[in-house]
């Protein structure tokens, strides 16, 4: 799998993402500066975490207008695989590649902690290493991760199985009004969603930061392993 990571001014988790991808592909992903207009030859485009443009105005708003976004939209239109994590997810919603928006965390504080995710959609390129209902641990680190969407969009996401991950407790119980298991207050505890063709995934937590036992575990690894298989197939 050839992967490309997009770097915006203020992106800061591109190296974490590169480590995770290298771990499953054996090869360092390409870094693409946001001023480029061509993605080159790639199977996967990743928008990593960070504070593009300082998160000023709204997270992801300015990055969504970067020159490279045209190429990413075209890539997505042709059925390319795109993963947006944290700031990357925010950028994907700002460009309209994914529906909804990410508001300030409900408690108005930056949150940096481990959370548990329950896998909701199986057999997608991003989740097929898990079974529906599986629970895994992953760090999260964001100030604006409170997912929201209008009712019609929510119904569509839920109805078409486009919710990829939900925040849960360690046992997999989902309870949207419980700050302990749904720390940022997301509607329906939504932590990650998919595009209609299930080739674009946006999520707030950072599976790329839990791919090594030395750092506390490998719970995030299946996402990347799964991508390799899905994309190569």
């Amino acid at each position, binding site marked *: 799998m050839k992967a490309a990571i997009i770097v915006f*001014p*203020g992106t*800061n*988790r591109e*190296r*974490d993402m590169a*480590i*995770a991808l290298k771990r499953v592909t054996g090869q360092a992903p390409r870094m693409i500066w946001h001023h480029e207009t061509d993605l080159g030859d790639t199977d996967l485009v990743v928008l990593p*975490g*960070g*504070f593009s*443009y*300082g*998160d*000023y105005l709204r997270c992801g708003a300015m990055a969504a207008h970067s020159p490279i976004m045209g190429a990413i939209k075209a890539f997505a239109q042709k059925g390319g695989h795109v993963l947006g994590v944290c700031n990357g997810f925010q950028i994907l919603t700002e460009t309209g590649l994914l529906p909804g928006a990410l508001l300030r965390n409900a*408690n108005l*504080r*930056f*949150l*940096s*902690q481990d959370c548990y995710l329950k896998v909701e959609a199986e057999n997608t390129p991003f989740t097929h290493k898990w079974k529906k209902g599986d629970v895994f641990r992953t*760090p999260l*680190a964001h*100030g604006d991760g409170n997912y929201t969407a209008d009712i019609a969009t929510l119904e569509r996401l839920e109805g078409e199985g486009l919710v990829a991950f939900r925040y849960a407790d360690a046992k997999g119980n989902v309870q949207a009004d419980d700050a302990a298991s749904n720390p940022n207050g997301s509607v329906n505890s939504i932590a990650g969603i998919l595009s209609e063709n299930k080739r674009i995934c946006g999520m707030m937590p*950072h599976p*790329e*930061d839990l791919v*090594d036992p*030395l*750092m*506390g575990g490998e719970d995030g690894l299946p996402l990347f392993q799964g991508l390799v298989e899905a994309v190569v197939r």
Partner: protein
Amino acid sequence: MNKPVTVDESLAREFGLTSEEYGRVLSIMGRTPSLTELGVFSVMWSEHCSYKSSRKWLRTLPTKAPWVIHGPGENAGVVDIGQGYAAIFKMESHNHPSFIEPYQGAATGVGGILRDVFTMGARPIANLNALRFGSPENPVTRRVIDGVVRGIGGYGNCVGVPTVGGEINFHPAYDGNPLVNAMTVGLARKDRIFLSAAAGVGNPVVYVGSRTGRDGIHGATMSSAEFDEDALSKRPTVQVGDPFIEKLLIEACLELMATDAIVAIQDMGAAGLTSSSVEMAGKGGVGIELDLDAVPQREPNMTAYEMMLSESQERMLMVLRPDRTDVARKIFEKWELDFAIIGHLTDTGHIVVKHKGQLEADIPLDPLAEQAPIYDRPATPPKAPAPLEGVHAPLSLDATLLKLVGSPDLASRAWVWNQYDSTVGGQTVRRPGAADAAIVKVEDTDIGLAITTDCTPRYCQADPKTGGAQAVAEAWRNLTATGARPLAVTDNLNFANPEKPEIMGQFVAAVEGMGEACSALDFPVVSGNVSLYNETRNPDGSTTAILPTPAIGALGVLDDVNKAVGLGMQPESEVVLIGETKGELGQTIWLREILGQEAGAPPPVDLAAEKRNGDFVRSAILDGTITACHDIADGGIMVAAAEMVMASGIGCELESPDSGIRPEAFWFGEDQARYLACVADGKALCERAQAAGVPARIIARSGGNDLILPSGVTISAARLKTAHEAFFPTLMGN
């Protein structure tokens, strides 16, 4: 400042110079200085930049070891960590700004210390912060905590440097003067270190980063003055940080540093353009000429005086090879940062400043530095504390323990560190709370860096010398408890008004204690910062001084990071108490929280025992015998055991000590040089300890999920955690 002002002694005094110092300015200049010149002298000779009260004593600290590459004198200290890498680190205070505007004060403190580290060529890989707040009951404290924690997170999270550790104490002495000490650790190739001494007459002087505004003018002199109610009217000096620009600046500087364009580089910290240009030229023994018309400006009509003294953030000054300025310009343009050639080096030995065709300043650099005032201020040696006598326990052990683990100084800091991104970078091996020191891996190697900050101000207040030594010893112990080999120290010496002999006496004694400990432990000081005048003038004219707070930041190395241990209790283990217990209750948390007294002498520090015990523990960690380790500090043995239980959820049963010491003294005394260690075979470890001359005994066996006291009383890990975790959320309201 567009009205002409008369430069005279009274203006000099307003700028913080004494009459005698102003006399010295006159004799150096041979004429009345211009306003800009007076400004330059006043900031360069401020306590903050000149270390005039502390220099004499700082010189007594040990600064050398075979692994020290650069000690004090550079922007940050540099040590060799093996495999061609160097760690670059320093700690710095932003105390006064953080009281006036907690968010921006703390944020710009983080920004400033980051620049001190990346200016030397290092990628910042970890931040820590040592914080001291007023009484939790004081309503102002909440506002300060909220702003400081948001500010540190807001800046550090955005620049993408993980905040991995720190410490927090509460005491009413900090009510009007909280302490915010920020530390950064960076990583560089050891043959790619950048220094600040300028060289090459004719070489261009280049300004990069944010534009200059009227921010923080006279910040350096303000941080050198005692705080009074007027402080609030000095507010316009508040600087606002832009972490986004800082992030770009880090990337752009590192990209430029990979070329051969840079001759010298220096961040613009306190006293901005003045101190950076004076220091670069002064260190290089050259002259410098600046043309302020070329300085990127944010506001119209700025004067030379304002530009020279502005403390606008996120700016750097560099001397470049003339044939490489285009390479450099391209890099900064790519990162969308201002880049301007604002002058050149000369052979005059003067700093010459021109603006709008006028000569605004012309000062000889040598006298500016060499005749900078140094004071040997009168110091009254601190009185020895009266010994503690006749205290006894009013509460049962279990009630005492639950109260202690929930007390402000011991309660869980998770509320704080959960607002700091501790994993960005993907190299954080031990996050906050997981071990006695944070551990960050050096990417693509097996090297681990262990990092901690420590100081126990209540010990320093009672006995500054012991307190100074204890702070160093505790830092060394915290590194050791992870398996790391302690390498070096940075410090932040926070004290009150040095013009008062008893405060100067505290300072001298604390530095003496630090120095002794650093020597005995082979643990040199490689960088640091001094923050004086930390006191508040009360409405009735009296002053409140902070507790003497020589914060120690320390760094150690693990050649194989896989061997690091954490502090979480391990299953099916015996827990060995290492080090001697006499039951020292003076100045303990127990005494303060349970009996409401701050009394007695702090626990004595025996540096030989410290070294012996620590070296033993480290060797047993590195050979895999010890599987978890926690140093025994505030709260004593029982609190340490409870912390191990809470960290992993695995319980243990404590044995009755049979020591002849009263139970509260045995369990809550704060004797130094001690550790709790999990091992499979406690007896074997004790035998090995005995052979090494190290006191050791089995104190507990792990298992279940409860902490079981010798009395048989059982406290579940969950119940401990509830007591432990309530303090911050309750105080802060969420």
